[in-house]
């Protein structure tokens, strides 16, 4: 997002307690649950921000407009597409939370399949539901101000973004690779030391290099980093290692264009 957009939208936020709404689309609920998982910060957050539409947490659901809207999940039905357009109208700042809203999520795996055939296989009465051809990110349909990556988002990252918006500053979400986080932590490189397939070199930071710190290769749940050189990465591995790299690219961020492209070059 542009600096101007944030400061323009945030200017009003300093005069009163800003309002926030949480909207769910196709998802596992895990990213919005991260808000409630901010246990020791939760009451402080709710004192700084008036959460007036968060159905998973409260029966009080007030109509818009809202200063900040958090969108979780991907668009998979025509009804949800209409709903997203309305959400955009109602929100000063629209922030997507997680891989589903940012790249279509794991459910975008069905994008390569024929959806009518799929629906007919699943439902005795497929006419009861209106599933779209593809599972798509919010940014395909509306302007998005901030996208927080991750499957799930990092809870501290989410709280930081809210804090930045309240202060009228641009959120600082890293775009470099997980490798940098590994180096900062001092974690031994699982690829160099143990030959494990790892998507760290092509995956965006933000998790704190979690998987390598647990002695496994990164599986790409934060989506593509700013530079994705998969040809160089996959050249390091044999057939089985390449298959693991490809499976990672085709999982929780399968719909991210840089991963889609990369999967063709493994």
């Amino acid at each position, binding site marked *: 997002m542009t600096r101007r957009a944030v400061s323009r939208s945030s200017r009003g936020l300093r005069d009163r307690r800003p309002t926030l709404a949480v909207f769910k689309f196709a998802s*596992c609920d895990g*990213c919005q649950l991260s808000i409630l998982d901010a246990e020791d910060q939760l009451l402080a957050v709710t004192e700084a921000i008036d959460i007036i539409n968060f159905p998973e*947490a409260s029966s009080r659901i007030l109509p818009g407009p809202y200063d900040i809207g958090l969108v979780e999940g991907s668009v*998979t039905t025509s009804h949800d597409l209409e709903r997203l357009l309305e959400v955009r109208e109602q929100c000063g700042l629209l922030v997507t939370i997680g891989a589903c809203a940012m790249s279509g999520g794991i459910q975008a795996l069905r994008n390569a399949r024929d959806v009518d055939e799929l629906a007919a296989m699943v439902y005795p*009465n497929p006419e009861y539901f209106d599933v779209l051809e593809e599972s798509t990110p919010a940014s395909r349909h509306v302007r998005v101000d901030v996208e927080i990556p991750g499957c799930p988002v990092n809870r501290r990252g989410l709280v930081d973004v809210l804090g930045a918006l309240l202060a009228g500053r641009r959120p600082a979400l890293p775009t470099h690779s997980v490798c940098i986080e590994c180096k900062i932590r001092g974690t031994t490189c699982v690829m160099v030391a143990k030959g494990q397939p790892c998507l760290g070199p092509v995956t965006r930071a933000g998790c704190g290099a979690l998987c390598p710190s647990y002695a496994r290769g990164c599986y790409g749940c934060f989506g593509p980093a700013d530079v994705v050189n998969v040809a160089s990465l996959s050249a390091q591995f044999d057939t089985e290692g390449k*298959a693991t790299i490809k499976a990672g690219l085709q999982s929780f961020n399968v719909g991210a264009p840089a991963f889609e492209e990369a999967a063709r070059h493994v």
Partner: protein
Amino acid sequence: MSETRTIEVGYLARVEGEGSLRAEVIDGELGNVEFSIFEPPRFFEAFLRGRRFTEAPDITSRICGICPIAYQMSSVTAMEDVCGVDVGDPLHELRRLIYCGEYIESHALHIYLLHVPDFLGYESGIAMAADHRAVVERGLRLKQTGNEIIRVLGGREIHPVNVRVGGFWRLPTRKDLDGLATELDRARDEAAETVRWVSQLNIPDVTRPVEFVALSDPDRYPFTEGRIRSSRGIDIDVSEWNEVFVEQHVERSNALHAVIRERGMYAVGPTARFALNHEVIQPVAARAAAEAGLEPGVPNPFQSIIVRAVETLHAVEEALAIIDAYEPPVEASIPVDPVAGVGHGASEAPRGLLYHRYGIRADGEIAEAQIVPPTSQNQLSIEADLREVLVANLDKPDAELQWILEQAIRNYDPCISCATHFLRLEIDRG
């Protein structure tokens, strides 16, 4: 001229996922009662086909951000069953420990933030904090302790990364576990206080006998252990699930409903689990239940909040016992080579029995998957409760009636995201 009263909630709050409620009263008589699921399906069982068998725990955890451990445990158990592997006691104990974390986290979330507001007349746990700050903070600390177990053993609270077919990627250190024990010592009092506190709530007096189904084991309160038993005599191996139960398609919901083939509806979850396993719950939890006046098997769905509190205390004690007796496994995981065949795995998610069945090929590719989450097993029972509650409260004004109906749905802590995302493919694509 007939008079129709309709209670309608288009988007249920304080549940996981998207569901709605509709109840009709025609001339003072009960009409249709529907608890519907409109969350869009995500076709997980279709994606799993063609993936490596080792990917199942990471992929299936994404069905539910609320109970990812349950999905990981049912799936690894099923995959190890296909491949004929037993991970052995020390690794199994660590799996029980991370599952304790999920019980504490999930139950504390449901009790304090989602369900108690119904009993005390608040819109949310956060709003409740204005009048009961210390209580809400106690709940959040308890929830944090559960999450801390998952974070230490799994790497993160939601979609942990450390669980794999065959065990874990990395073992916790003694220091990690000692840190958890310190927190759990503190949580013990908070969990005991939670049982006392919820037992003093005004619990509606509603009785509706139902067949309870849960895993049951003679020695331990089950997470992944034991046979599937019921309060009316079912006693089967996990692999026999499809012989006794069947999933049915209901038009109004984007989910299948499970029933017992011979006699229909049943209920899973804390009340069922406690009814069938109270003899092996941690003694501290058994005493707390007795002091709270909780009798196993009493078919009042509104007592589920007390059972959740008792199970939270059990999970705290169980976690401490596991840490106390912990002997590190030789390796973080044992190798699992794929074997062509079909395997079954069941575990007791916080919301009830979660059954997985997979077929895999000799090269390790998943050929088929069946996943039956707790909420799709409870859906008919939820609707039956709603009828019971409606009949007993027809004289109440609409707003009050709606309130108690929503409260009745939350007795089950329904996870609609889970229920929707398992839709069976009826046709084999070859």
